[in-house]
């Protein structure tokens, strides 16, 4: 009993000391914290607007309070389900077809024995990540048009040309493929780094046992990066309801709307272009809360399954 008390006391003293010690560190933190308070939390204050009938003249503080009106409107909107469906589907597509690519790519690059070649491949695969969205979309339109690269290849093989950007069923594949083109190389860095920290002795032992390289990948490399994969997966799940609006806005049109229109583009059209500020903010908030919930739930599941979790 006594020992426990003493332990507590010690702990307390330690904490006080730690605070005093931290004083200097807090001084360093002053600017960053100020930054977060002003630019992040200051801006979050705006979220109140989601519960108001916002009037720019009256401002955030004096606008009329309407409670959950906008949330109800959104949930009752016949278009609501389509939006949710499109958003979730787009993310599911990304999870299924984009998510594994960086992992595979990293495993493949990791298998390249020639150091210089490895470096060249890495360097080039990261490149597209640095292009802005307009540039990427300009490229996509060009490549996917009727006279574009893909159609030229198709017709070279005697297949019929397709107007890809005009077909709703092609929108998701195009979107995901372009994501792969732009980001797969970049995202593979994280797995590559994880791979480099896998114990070399494991491979050596495997070689002695006569395991093929493919077997080494499956039995050593993959398990070695499993925790990183699960963390990335968790992060991706947290974004299940969010898809960036910018790229889609630049690529969709009336014909592809039925698969391309997602929550963020809708928010942009309603909230910004049609100046329905309260409504847009409400939908935004809704999306953020769902995202937060998913990530928490997924994390719980991960903790139960005893794989790596976010916190």
């Amino acid at each position, binding site marked *: 009993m006594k020992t426990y008390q003493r332990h507590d006391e010690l702990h307390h003293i330690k904490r006080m000391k730690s605070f005093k010690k931290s004083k200097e560190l807090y001084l360093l933190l002053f600017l960053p914290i100020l930054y977060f308070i002003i630019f992040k939390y200051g801006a979050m204050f705006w979220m109140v607007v989601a519960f108001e009938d*916002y*009037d*720019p*003249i009256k*401002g955030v503080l004096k606008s009329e309070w309407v409670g959950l009106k906008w949330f109800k409107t959104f949930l009752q909107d*016949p*278009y609501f389900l389509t939006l949710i469906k499109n958003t979730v589907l787009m993310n599911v597509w990304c999870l299924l077809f984009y998510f594994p690519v960086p992992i595979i790519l990293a495993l493949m690059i990791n298998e390249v024995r020639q150091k210089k070649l490895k470096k060249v491949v890495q360097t080039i695969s990261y490149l597209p990540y640095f292009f802005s969205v307009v540039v990427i979309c300009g490229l996509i*339109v060009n490549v996917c*048009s*009727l*006279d574009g690269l893909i159609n030229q290849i198709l017709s070279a093989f005697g297949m019929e*040309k*397709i*107007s890809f*950007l*005009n077909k709703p069923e092609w929108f998701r594949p195009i979107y995901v493929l372009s994501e792969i083109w732009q980001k797969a190389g970049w995202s593979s860095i994280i797995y590559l780094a994880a791979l480099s920290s896998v114990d070399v002795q494991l491979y050596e032992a495997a070689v002695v046992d006569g395991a093929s390289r493919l077997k080494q990948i499956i039995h050593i490399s993959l398990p070695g990066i499993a925790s990183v994969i699960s963390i990335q997966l968790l992060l991706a799940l947290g974004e299940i309801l969010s898809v960036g609006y910018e790229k889609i806005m630049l690529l969709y*049109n*009336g*014909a592809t*709307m*039925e698969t391309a229109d997602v929550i963020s583009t809708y928010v942009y059209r*309603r909230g*910004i*272009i*049609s*100046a*329905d*500020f309260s409504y847009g903010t409400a939908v935004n908030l809704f999306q953020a809360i769902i995202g937060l919930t998913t990530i928490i739930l997924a994390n719980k599941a991960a903790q139960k399954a005893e794989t790596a979790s976010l916190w």
Partner: protein
Amino acid sequence: MKKMKRLGAIMLTMLMVMQCVACSGKKEPTNDNPSITPTKGVSDKEQNNPEGEKKSSLYFEDTLSFTWMLAESDIPLKDDILTLNWLRENMNVDIHIMAVPDSDYETKLSTMTATNSLPDVVDVDSNVIESVAGSGMLLNLSDYEKSMPDYIALIEGEDRANNTATYKYNGDIYGFQILEDYRVGIAPLPVIRTDLLEKYNIKTPTSWEELYDAMLIMKENDPNNYVFSTRNGITYLLGNIAYSMGAGGYGATQNGFPVYYEPDQDRYIYGPAKDEFKNAVQYLANAYKDGLLHPDYNIMDRTMVTSYLTSGTLAVVIDNTTFTNSYNNAIQELYPEAYFDMLDPLTYGGNTKARQVTFSKDWDQFTVINSKVERAEDLVKFFNWLYTEEGALLTNYGVEGETYEMVEGTPKLLDSISAIGDYATLRANYGLGTWYIARFVNENTYMDMFKYQEKVTGIAPVNMTQADRIQKLKEEGILVHTQSFPSFTNEETERLTTLETNLNTVFDQEINKFITGQRSMEEWGSFVEELKGMGVAEVEEIYNTAYSRLK
């Protein structure tokens, strides 16, 4: 230690550079000529203009300076330019142009309205007035009617009283509309490769059916030719064809919603629900099936259409006819014999008389004033001045002796100016025309250029002959201007937003299926019923109620 010092030095330099840029970033000192801050207006004015000839009828004793937000596209907007400098010198009006990239104008405008931080003066379209005027953010110009006699006289004139009344909000004026004084003829008509018509011995089409046959012949002779498309998406194509076939909506109307004014019935109608609309859809569906409509019809932008037209993959395009000139210039580099020209409005289904709708008479672009400005009355006076003969002359023709001369009482561009050859450069170099500050637009400047070109080359530019033809078509009543929408009350607007958003969503999604054959045309009837079930009748009623208030 050495390294630290270097780091310090770098940071210091950086800070200094930052300060410099920061300074230059601050708002320009609003007065370029500090000497013009007269206390006694008249005498100072004479001091500035010793010849006393360049006097303007309107002069402000204290510099009237304000920021004006305008969309900038291909034409760069500058403060230091002939017209704006003239205003500084002769009227003591210092305009500072806030050039916002056209591609993102709406986003910027919306953010500024959301935060009530609009600049002094902004250019907007009628939709924005409708959604913002009620908030009190914009200056109610009707309170200053006495200071704007020239503008009032124009908008209440016989030829536009009806139309401009539709832009009032709750009976009040909130924006200075860009008005037409003289405009080079322009219409959304089919533009066609006439050299191909000759080559294949096709009679110039006068009806949609004949055009279809002509396109078929072109396709037969050159299977690589997709024949036709547009660069504004399917609704634009549909709208213009539909009007010609007896329905309407979309196309050259100003709004993204297919309600249009039907002159035959003197009321507003939701186009797609009208029986005749089906003809247009059917026409395009057939064209798609027969390989006449370019499969990329929905995604073409200016660059794409141009490159298809000039490479010979397209022969017909429905578009703003004034593009014809640029198409010809571009294609003749590749095929010297190629020639684009517009078709006269086409008849349909055995009708003898064609009908075609064209862009509204005046522009759907308004200059609104922030209600927070201090010198509201002076600003109103200045904008009114832009509609006077003097103001129109400056903003369209520039400065006498520098850009134009008076010939028998009418202004004419100097030959050296006409030699520039294209309007974009003319506007860009001298600050003229709609994309700068002209509010009462006189496009005779372009005609001067065409005439000059004709004089030098001996060939009349196609736009010149088209302008004459379009003028004649208007006089004959075949080509009519789009009628603007009546203005609505707040409740009406709110209801319309909901109805229109839903209707548009469904229409946009389904229409392409009909055209590409995913849905059979036999289902069209049930599709229209579906649309009707979503409140078409209510929409039409709201429009016509608002319209009856005007009458």
